[in-house]
């Protein structure tokens, strides 16, 4: 069972190596490794389903000397989302990068990106995470610049530099932790912090946590550190934008969540969590407002990512105030569900936007009317993804927002509900501003799909966010070990 933890790293890495050595077969080998990865992650998820948690000490060296891998419900959920989204993106990319000269650059970097994502969700070691973060940052910036236009190069160079600043700050935190606690392992660190031997250790740990969260917040584009995201995500090739928005920023958020709520839980305070929530609120309002004003479809999607990441940070102050128990674990499941739903919805939205851009030759929203009316499948994708971004039933984000609302009320922190409402109204506005373009007087086209290989994956992703995740939440609750539900 634990073999699948290692294979989650080795399968995409081996694919990347083969694709590097045999660029002429890049698309075939690449797609095959992504499929193999999906299969392996399915096995891994099954293992977590049965055993609650899978653990592995690499090379049989137990921490603190060695590196530990841990897959719990949260990791498995993120891994499963990554596997499905990357499979859809890969199918789409096979169609998008038809030019072999571009395909041979795309596939190895894409598989290395997948390797680093899997590693990030599994590693329980602060320094191994640093190496994974750098692998992620470098491959993401290189992928984002594949389009080759000047704006893409500029935006992604900035993304690369910001990412490096973030990882250096994170690494300083790691160095402080090692100097104080002589371990990099999550479980051992959490145990030492919970014991709370000396006040000085607490101070050192809190400073290190602050540095690490700051570095990761830069990578997760938390308002006001989001300035690099819209140009970078808006200028990348569509499959890459989808991966960046749905997976890459999510990985940094996942790490913050993991460090804040588990490893460093004894050191976090309500005030600090309120600060994260406040920044999240800023992101919701500012991101939604900018999405409403965006003139290009991909820029709208990118700003909406800023806003949706903000929602994820709203959970921190509420989770912080709740004692351990059912309400709290339900809320924890809700933040996971929110992250998953956004991952599916946003990747679907970006893939659809890329197809629209290819068909229309541009993505200026004001002039998209006739194009959208000829693409019923893509229009449906946009509508489904929009439903999830707004948080209407039956999307996964509706369930998540509902639980967030309940948690905020139970906690007496009603002010977050105002942010939630304002963000939702703004999301309604920007989604409807887009959708009104799709309904005109043109005759209905005969074919639902214009190009199934490009439109199918996007539609499936959006349907996953809105249909499946909202209705069938029970498996997720089980995976995360909560009773869940809307009770």
């Amino acid at each position, binding site marked *: 069972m634990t073999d699948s933890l290692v294979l989650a790293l080795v399968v995409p890495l081996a694919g990347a190596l083969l694709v590097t050595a045999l660029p002429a077969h890049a698309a075939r080998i690449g797609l095959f490794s992504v499929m193999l990865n999906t299969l392996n992650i399915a096995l891994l998820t099954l293992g977590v389903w049965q055993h609650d948690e899978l653990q592995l000490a690499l090379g049989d060296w137990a921490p603190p*000397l060695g590196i530990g891998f841990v897959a719990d419900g949260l990791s498995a959920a993120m891994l499963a989302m990554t596997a499905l989204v990357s499979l859809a993106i890969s199918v789409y990319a096979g169609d998008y990068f038809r030019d072999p000269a571009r395909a041979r650059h795309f596939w190895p970097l894409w598989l290395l990106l997948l390797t680093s994502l899997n590693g990030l969700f599994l590693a329980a070691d602060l*320094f191994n995470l*640093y*190496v994974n973060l*750098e692998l992620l*940052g*470098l491959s993401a*910036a*290189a992928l984002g*610049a594949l389009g080759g236009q*000047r704006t893409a*190069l*500029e935006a*992604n*160079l900035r993304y*690369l*530099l910001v990412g*490096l*600043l973030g990882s*250096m700050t994170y*690494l*300083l935190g790691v*160095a*402080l932790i*090692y*100097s104080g606690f002589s371990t990099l392992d999550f479980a051992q660190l959490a145990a030492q912090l919970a014991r709370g031997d000396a006040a000085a250790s607490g101070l050192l740990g809190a400073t290190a946590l602050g540095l690490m969260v700051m570095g990761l917040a830069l990578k997760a584009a938390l308002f006001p550190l989001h300035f690099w995201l819209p140009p970078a995500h808006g200028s990348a090739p569509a499959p890459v934008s989808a991966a960046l928005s749905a997976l890459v920023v999510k990985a940094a958020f996942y790490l913050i969540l993991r460090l804040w709520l588990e490893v460093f839980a004894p050191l976090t305070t309500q005030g600090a969590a309120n600060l994260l929530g406040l920044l999240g609120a800023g992101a919701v309002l500012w991101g939604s407002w900018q999405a409403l004003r965006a003139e290009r479809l991909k820029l709208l999607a990118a700003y909406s990512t800023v806003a949706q990441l903000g929602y994820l940070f709203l959970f921190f102050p509420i989770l912080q105030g709740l004692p351990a128990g059912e309400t709290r674990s339900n809320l924890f499941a809700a933040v996971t569900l929110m992250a998953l739903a956004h991952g599916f919805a946003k990747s679907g939205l970006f893939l659809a936007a890329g197809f629209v851009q290819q068909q229309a030759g541009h993505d200026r929203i004001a002039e998209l009317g006739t194009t959208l009316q000829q693409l019923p499948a893509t229009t449906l994708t946009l509508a489904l993804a929009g439903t999830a971004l707004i948080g209407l039933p039956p999307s996964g984000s509706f369930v998540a927002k509902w639980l967030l609302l309940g948690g905020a009320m139970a906690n007496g922190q009603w002010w977050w509900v105002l942010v939630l409402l304002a963000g939702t109204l703004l999301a309604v506005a920007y989604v409807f501003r887009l959708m009104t373009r799709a309904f005109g007087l043109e005759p209905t086209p005969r074919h639902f799909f214009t190009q199934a290989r490009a439109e199918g994956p996007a539609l499936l992703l959006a349907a996953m966010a809105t249909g499946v995740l909202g209705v069938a939440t029970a498996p997720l609750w089980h995976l995360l070990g909560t009773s869940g539900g809307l009770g």
Partner: protein
Amino acid sequence: MDAELLYASAGFILFVLGIWSLLLHRLLIRKLIALNIMGSGVFHLLIATAEHHGEPADPVPHALVLTGIVVAVSATALALSFGRALRGDGDD
């Protein structure tokens, strides 16, 4: 004041000097030098904490720093390539 603490202190100063230069200078090469010096500060802190008066030094931070050095050079090389592509001087 202890020599080990002095060494650690230099690491913090290098880190902060690096951020300062990164934020205030616009030339790509200077930004990259700044990032590298920031990194050197962190590495230096790790090396300083590995040293324990006379006893053999802790090998784990040393290995972490070795890894970090290679990662930093990789990132520098990639960023410089971006700069070259932006300037579009493939033929000097």
